[in-house]
C-alpha cells in the first residue's frame, strides 16, 4: 500500500503516539482536577497543580514530537520547511489547548480553562524555543525546570512582579501573565519554524 506523504511525515515524527499521549494527558488532568476538588477541605483553587503540570506534560509531548530522525535528509528537500514546521507546532498545540480547556470546567476566574490555555501556550512556546536551542528530545527540560523553580517561589499575592515572572501560577484572567505567555508562544513557535530543531547527532 502506498501511503500519502502526509501520513509518512506523521509517522516519521511519531505523531500518532504523541496524539494518544495528549489524550491521555487531558484525561489524567480531568481526573486529577476532579479528585483534588473532591478532597475534604479543598475547593476549586486546589486545581493549581493540574493547571501547571497538565500543560507542562502536553508541552513535553509536543516538544519531543518535533524530533526528526532524518534531519540532514529533510534539509535537502526542495520545498520550504517553515510552513510544515509551523503547522507541526500549531496544530497539536491547538488540540492540547482544546483538550485541557475541556478538562478543567468552571471557575474561569481562578484555575480553570483560561489558566490552562495560557499555560499550555506559554510552556509550549518555551519548549519550541528549547527545541531550536537544545534539540527536540531534550525540549521538555527548560519548561520543567522553569515550572519547578517558580511553583514554590511564587508569592501568594501579586507582589514583586509575580504576574510577570511567575505567570504559570497566576489565576486565569490576568493580562500581564497572558502577555508573557503569548510572547513566549509566538517567539518559540517562530524560532522553531525559522530554524527547526537543533541537529543532535551523537548528542550527550
Amino acid at each position, binding site marked *: 500500500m502506498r501511503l500519502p506523504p502526509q501520513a509518512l511525515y506523521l509517522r516519521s515524527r511519531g505523531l500518532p503516539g504523541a496524539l494518544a499521549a495528549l489524550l491521555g494527558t487531558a484525561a489524567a488532568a480531568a481526573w486529577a482536577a476532579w479528585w483534588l476538588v473532591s478532597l475534604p477541605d479543598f475547593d476549586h483553587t486546589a486545581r493549581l497543580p493540574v493547571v501547571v503540570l497538565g500543560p507542562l506534560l502536553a508541552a513535553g*509531548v509536543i516538544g*519531543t514530537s518535533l524530533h526528526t530522525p532524518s534531519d540532514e535528509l529533510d534539509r535537502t528537500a526542495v520545498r520550504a520547511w517553515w510552513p510544515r514546521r509551523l503547522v507541526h507546532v500549531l496544530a497539536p498545540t491547538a488540540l492540547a489547548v482544546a483538550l485541557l480547556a475541556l478538562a478543567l470546567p468552571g471557575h474561569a476566574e481562578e484555575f480553570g480553562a483560561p489558566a490552562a490555555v495560557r499555560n499550555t501556550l506559554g510552556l509550549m512556546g518555551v519548549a519550541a524555543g528549547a527545541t531550536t536551542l537544545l534539540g527536540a*528530545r531534550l525540549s521538555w527540560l527548560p519548561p520543567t*525546570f522553569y515550572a*519547578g523553580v517558580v511553583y*514554590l517561589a511564587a508569592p501568594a499575592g501579586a507582589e514583586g512582579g509575580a504576574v510577570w515572572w511567575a505567570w504559570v501560577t497566576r489565576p486565569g484572567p490576568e493580562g500581564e501573565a497572558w502577555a508573557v505567555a503569548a510572547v513566549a508562544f509566538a517567539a518559540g513557535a517562530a524560532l522553531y519554524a525559522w530554524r527547526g530543531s537543533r541537529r543532535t547527532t551523537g548528542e*550527550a
Partner: protein
Amino acid sequence: MTTTLTPPRAEKPAPARAPAPLRTELRRGLGPWTGAAVALTVFVTMYGKGLGWQGRWADATNLLHVVAGLLCGPLALAAGCWQGGRDRRRRTTELWESVPRSPLRRLLVSVAPSALWPAAGLLLADAVCLLATWPYVSAGRPFLELLAADAVAVAALGALGHLAGRVARWRLTAPLLGIVGYVALGLAAYTEGTARWLGPAGEHQFSWDRPVWWYGPVSMAWTAGLTLAVLLAYGLRPARLRVLALVPLAVAVAAAGLILRLPQDQGPWRPDPALSRQICDDGTPQICLTAVDEALLPEVSAALAPLNSRLKGMPGAPARWVGGISGPALPGDIELPSPRQDAVRNRLVRPDLYLNSAVNWLFSDTCQDGDGAGPNAERSWAIHLAVTEWLAPTPDDYGPDTTGAQPYIDRLDAKSPAEQRDYLTRYLAANTCRPDEVPIP
C-alpha cells in the same frame, strides 16, 4: 665521501595517560548542568519565599528540606533519566559491552554524574543558605544531618532515574518521570501518617523542636540502601551474584521499619528545652521571648517602649509580655504576637505595626457567646478602637477606619497625664465583653 645521516636518538615519548573514565563522565554531558539547575532552584525558591527563614536554624533547615524533596528530587529524577538513555541514543551500548570492565563497575561510573551532580548542587546551595542564616540566629544548631540526608535522597532519585532511562526506550519517559515525581513527592509530603517521614519532603514547622539523633543517618540508610539494592540487582553479573542486592535491601527495610515506628503526629521531632527557654529584658513590664528569638529582644523592647512607659506601675497593667511557645504562664502575663514573622535579619520591618498588634492583644478578652451585644456595643467598639489608636496609632496603610473613634481619641488627648493614667487604669480593669461596663473617656 658519503655520510650516513642518522637521526639523533630520542627517548620514546611516554604515552599520554588517558583521564580516568569517572572524571570524563563527571565533566561531560548533562551532569554539571543538572547540578547548576538544582542549586539555582534552591536559590530562587529561598529568595522568593522572603528572607524570614534567616532568623532560625529550624526555619532555614525546614525550607531547604522541602525544596530539596519537592523540587530538586523530581529534577534529579528527570535529568538522571535523560542521562541514562544517552548510550542508547548514541548507539554506543555495544561498544560499552566490549570494555574490559565488569558490568557493575561500568554501571556505577555511568550513574555517577546523575547521582553526584544534583547532590553537589544541593549541598552548595545548602551551604550558602546556612551561611546567610548564621549571623542572625540566636540559639540551637543547623540540622546538618537532615540536609545530608536530603542530599543522599536527591542522589538516590538521580540514580533511580538513570536506571529508568536505561531500561525504558520511550522518549517521554524523562518528562513523565519528572512530573510523576512532583506529584508523588508532593502527595507523600502531605499525607497523614508515619509514612510521611519516609518521603524526602516531610515538613515540620515548629521552631522549638529538634530531630532525634538517629533520624538523619537512618533516613540516609533507607534511601541509599534502596537505591543500592536496585543498582546491584541491575548491574551484578553473573545472575547468581544478584543475591548480594539483598544486603542493602535488608538495611533499607530495617531503616524504614525504624522510621515507621515513630509517633504519627510529631514523627522524629522532640521539644528542645534549650530552644524554648525564656529570655527576659529588665524593663517594666518585662518582655520575655524564647531563646531562638533572643536576638530580637532589643528590637521588641524598643518597639514596645512607648506603650510600656505608659503602663509602668499601673494597676492592672501586665507584669510580663511573653512571646513564644510557653505563652502566658503566670498571672499578669500577656501574650506577645510573634515578632519573627515581622522580622527580616533580626530587625522588625514595621515596629509601628508590631506595637499596634501588641496593644490589640493586650485588650483582647475571651468573650462568651452573647457577650458584646446590647445597645452600647457599638460605642464600646468605638472606645476600644480609640484607646488602641491613642496608645499605638494604626499605620496609615493598614487597619480599620478610625473615623468613628476620633471624638474619643480627641478627648483622650485633651486629658492631663494624671487623668489619662486614671482612665487607662479603669479601662484595663473593665470587662470589654460587657459593653455597659466600658468606661467612657
